[in-house]
């Protein structure tokens, strides 16, 4: 197989990896905030359920979670899943998993805020929602940005775990080509793609961090 063909095939897979990455962030960043609220809820049962959810998500392999999401409906519920469910399962699995990690990051950030900020806002008459959205959250985002960047970089590499349910993202394709052609080349090319991807992610996040450095 020609190098160019290989690159073209892998580039197609790469787009799918990017899709997993993007959709996971779009889903898990807001969901993570909701989960963090549940985790910090004063309503004990909710707090316990969410705590359990987070510990399962963080305590078991993402690969296994993907399998459960993909095969679960069929084996557990006897539901016939369509052909495009493979991709849906990947996204559900990733979003649920990353939301748990993001939730803990949000929680850490929110709990690190000095109570004085809440008290000042309360004295000034800000509603609970206003206090959170205008005063607390912007500061929390700045504080947790480095941790979020870390997770994003991990996520770039984690997209390869979709191979566990044979979703045709870049790593799955690289593996297939490598075994059929008996060459290491696809892995090298995939490695370069991942590296460049992460380089871009790190670059963008650095810019975002800089943008938020107008205050301390």
């Amino acid at each position, binding site marked *: 197989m020609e190098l160019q063909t290989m690159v073209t095939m892998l580039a197609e897979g790469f787009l799918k990896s990017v899709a997993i990455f993007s959709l996971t962030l779009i889903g898990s960043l807001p969901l993570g905030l909701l989960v963090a609220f549940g985790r910090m809820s004063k309503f004990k049962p909710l707090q316990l359920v969410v705590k359990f959810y987070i510990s399962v998500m963080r305590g078991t392999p993402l690969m296994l979670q993907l399998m459960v999401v993909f095969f679960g409906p069929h084996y557990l519920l006897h539901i016939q899943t369509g052909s495009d469910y493979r991709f849906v399962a990947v996204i559900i699995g990733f979003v649920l998993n990353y939301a748990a990690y993001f939730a803990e990051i949000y929680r850490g950030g929110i709990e690190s805020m000095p109570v*004085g900020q809440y*008290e000042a806002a309360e*004295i*000034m*008459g800000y509603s609970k929602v206003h206090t959170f959205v205008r005063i607390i959250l912007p500061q929390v985002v700045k504080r947790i940005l480095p941790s979020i960047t870390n997770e994003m970089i991990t996520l770039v590499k984690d997209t390869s775990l979709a191979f566990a349910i044979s979703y045709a993202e870049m790593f799955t394709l690289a593996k297939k080509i490598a075994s059929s052609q008996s060459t290491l080349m696809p892995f090298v090319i995939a490695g370069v793609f991942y590296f460049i991807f992460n380089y871009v992610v790190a670059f963008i996040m650095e810019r975002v961090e800089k943008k938020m450095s107008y205050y301390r």
Partner: protein
Amino acid sequence: MNDILTMKNIQKSFGDLEVIKDISVSIKQGDVLSIIGPSGGGKSTLLRCAAMLETINGGSIAYGDKQAAWTDDNGKVVYAKGKQMKEIKNCFGLVFQNFNLFPHFSVLKNITDAPLRVQKRNKDEVMAEAEVLLDKMGLREKADAYPYQLSGGQQQRVAIARALALKPEILFFDEPTSALDPELTAEVLRVIRQLAEEDMTMGIVTHEMNFARLVSDHLIFIDGGIIVEQGSPDEVLGNPKMERTKAFLNKLEQ
């Protein structure tokens, strides 16, 4: 003159710790009340009860003729709710020892955000007033600065401007200069004195006895959760009657 704030028989405990045992105090319109006393005596707690940051366990609080909290027949404390509470919270402002400015807002935004977003007042009017306040605080050139770029004294003056921008009927200060160097202390005290001269109603917890003597109309000495002694600042500071007051003032002089 009318009482702006009336607190009666206030009790406040944290768990088993009875911090305020039974304190009644009121502040008349245009008056300045200073609260002094040893550390841990309950001064901040009293102020925080007045500002609704702490829930009292007994007694009553009223702003003007608006009842904020009262004790019902079963001895349970009831707080005003909803719109009424909102109105009450509009009556007072609080300046913290450590400023608590919003670090992600510029000086100007710290001052204008709540009048615009919370009170939903006219923008031109709010901006014009903010400018006047900044001038008054000597912070005209700092409007676009961020809190971290200011000295402690400047930050505290922004905090005062921020509180004033909401047009409170009464302003509370909890040791407004304790986090500041002596020179910076002077500039903040000057601003508060100016407010006193303009007949702003204030309640001030302070360790600055000379300042308290200058600005206040009434002074209370709190220790162990009760008012040990009160009166005009000259009476209490110049000629204290109680042993505990004398001991406290002597210790300060050393």
